[in-house]
């Protein structure tokens, strides 16, 4: 499964890297708006790539 890493900011910590798997995770949902947005970006990019691959095939 494709996966991405992204630095996600919190108020008290420095930005720390989070794994962003295409299928998502509870951890990303728990991160709230940022986690959902970043997951959607990775998921949409993955879906787009797949679609293009299918087209090319």
């Amino acid at each position: 499964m494709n996966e991405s890493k992204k630095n996600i900011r919190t108020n008290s910590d420095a930005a720390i890297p989070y794994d962003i798997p295409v299928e998502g995770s509870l951890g990303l949902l728990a991160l709230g708006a940022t986690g959902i947005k970043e997951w959607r970006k990775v998921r949409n990019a993955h879906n787009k790539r797949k679609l293009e691959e299918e087209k090319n095939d």
Partner: protein
Amino acid sequence: MHIINENWKKRRMTESGESKKRKVLLIGWDAADWKVINPLIEAGEMPALESLINEGVMGNLATLEPSFSPMLWTSIATGKRAHKHGILGFIEPDSSGLKVRPVSVVSRKVKAIWNILMQEGMRVHNVGWWPSHPAEPLNGISISNAYQKAQRPLGQPWKLARGTVHPPKMSRHFSSLRLHPGELTPAHILPFVPNASKVDQDKDKRLTIIAKMLAETATINSAGTWILENEEWDFMGMYFDGIDHFCHGFMNYHPPKMKNVAVEKFEIYQEVVKGAYKFHDMMLDRQLKLAGPDATVILVSDHGFHSDHLRPSFLSDEPAAPAQQHRSYGVICMRGPGIRKDERIYGATLLDIAPTILSLFGLPVGDDMDGRPLVQAFEGNTEIKRIESWEKVEGDCGMHPADRLEDPYDASEEVARLVELGYIEEPGKDDKKNVEKAVFESRYNLGRAYMGAKMFSEAKSIFEELAKKASDESRIVLRLASCKFELREFDSCLELIKDFGKWLTNDLAEHKEKKPKEIDRELIDDEELRKLEEEQRKDKLRLLNTRKDLMSLDLIRANVFLKKNQASSAMQIFRKMLAVYPRSKQLNLNLGRTHINLKNWEEAMRAFETALSVDPDDSSAYHGVAVCQLRQGNYYEAIDAALESIALMYHSPFGHYHLGEAFYYIEEYVRAAEAFEVCLAINPSIGKARNWLVEIYEDKLGNPEKAQFHQDYFQEKKLTEMVSSDQKMNGEEYANSKHVDLRDPVVVVSGLPRSGTSMMMQMLGEGGVDLFTDQERKADESNPMGYLEHEAAKRLARDARWVKNAKNKAVKIIANLLFYLPASNNYKVIFMLRHIDEVINSQQQMLIRNNKKGAKNYPTDLVESYRRTLEKARNWAKGRHYVDILYVNYRDVIEDPRKEASRVVEFLGRDIQVESMMAAVDKKLYRTKN
């Protein structure tokens, strides 16, 4: 604008002129319960909550009756009970009055904490509170409880209902932050259901339900975290209904396995509840980080949720029955600047949250709020300011205008969810009936809220009104009977119980006769089979509920007997019921109280211990143990049990009262005084605690000022402030108002000499009352039936130690000595009245008969002196809670002995023979007439 606003602004500025900000994040986890949380924390599976606890305070949060979440969360937000705030259930008629809709924030009649804070110049946000639709026009962002619900499948338009987001221009943005259940993948579901692959999803829809609950929870978190990251805030409220929903759906699969749950289902779904808690902890971690270390974070739940052997095996058939799975204690944790660290707090109720937040901001608490600030959680001394009411403070507070017209919105999904959770019945097609039903339920809930506030008279009126419409509904009749009981309308209560019990018994008999239909599974199709099975299940449930209702009626009946001092009749009922339900907690508690009433300490202990073996968290059972230990002289054990009881239910004044008594007996007078003071802080009407304090401050701690303060309380007739109903706990009663039962009273027959006191003593003796007399003074011509006195009574002014030996006996004490009766006992005084001229003449006759000096002169000075004595006696009785007095006219007794004897019997509340009493009245002895 109120002056507070200006003061607040000044207070917030530091010397350098910079704003010193207090920030409060209030997080609501519906139904969160320590019983589930504690093992998870011990296993290291809720690290965020663990850090919150370690950095602050934690404790139980007592819920309110009825434990319906929209009512409770509104009480949390307002600090007021439901009869004040106006939210009365799950659904309500819409503004046209023609249809029903989910309960809306427009029905809230008072300001929530965020409205008050906004009015005081703070920037406030609120996400998802229940109820909060339509979103209030706050100065920050306001997102209503209609936000997270997905009405259509993924891919179809998912519109936000109008009024969901304020300001409306932010609607598009927040719409995009929602998470649709259809987006979720196995990565999200498997942590809840590791064996999800075993689920036959054609027949079992539970995985879809989990996805829905998870998406809704994550959606609230999404909006909340966005605000915390991107907006300025002084106050932020976030409400999550996820734990409650997961628990209602899956608590029956939570370990240990319940008998009636199939093994394969248990194995599939046993991790769901744990998963829900763990996910909430992950979200909390993020929220805490975004809030930052300078914010005060308060996490609360509105009630708990039974997770162990106390999970009900069946629910009653009344609306909102799933609330029977709720436990009486929710959770509270608080951390932040000025909050104590790693400590436990006691006695918090959900009414205390709004007053606590006001105090954290240095704002006054409304006198019309029902809660109080949790000062025990604060470091140092915090000055608590008061204000009559925040409702009178003018200014923009972000509430909807009173005449706001509703935006029509499709609430069908929300209603469907409430039906799914079992909180409401499926609305029928008849809108009119639905509206009538919604109004009926809200009246019923209001009645229950009144009962929770101990406003039994108001509650009774409502249940009477409802009983006219639904005389066959047990829930209404039982509560009406309870109100009558609390209001001491015993005869009417018994009559109601008798009639309804007869009706229920007939119903039960009909059920027993009705044989279940034989089902030939070969001959009917699946749908028909399902219907028949459902019918049989309902029949069985009804039978169980009818039995339960009969038991509840018997419990009330037995308690009426206890109140009427007929403990043996009560005991008979309990024994009969215990034969059927030996492990019933309620029954054992009642049995224990009855044994206390009969002074059977050991048997009482056994009953309370049985109750504790069923529910080790029952505060009243611990309190019962404390009373038993105390009365047996085991003071240290009594202290332990009383402390256990207080830890579970801080607000019960009698836990503190008995703790005070136990400390007194081990000569820990400072602690005893503290305990009695707390008792009075909770309920100022418990005069007996005040008596203890008078004695402790005066005799033991050398603090006459404080003793005088409590003494003055009576003298200044503050009794008028006292509650009208008597207080009862575990069989020991304390009267607050006149003409009520006093526990173990000394029956005092008093009056001026020759006013008929000996005759009254004679009557009581004939009626069966034990007389406290030494027969030292023999009968003579003046009193041929005997004086029935005790020499000790004549020495009362010098020595009152003997008085406790006269408990439950009758003793004669002349009016002039009444004032020396010690406050540590209760007294039922029968005060004989006779015309003063007759009294003096009779005394003169007596002196003549005894050849005494002064017999020849009429003592004119005595007339005024006697008048003063009578007045003084009357005032003495009026100002003391431990004295109940009945005035009996001597001439009335002579003229109508039956009537007067009956009055005495009623006053004493004992089983005394009126006929026998009458026999003691000898009209011939009425020799001196005016």
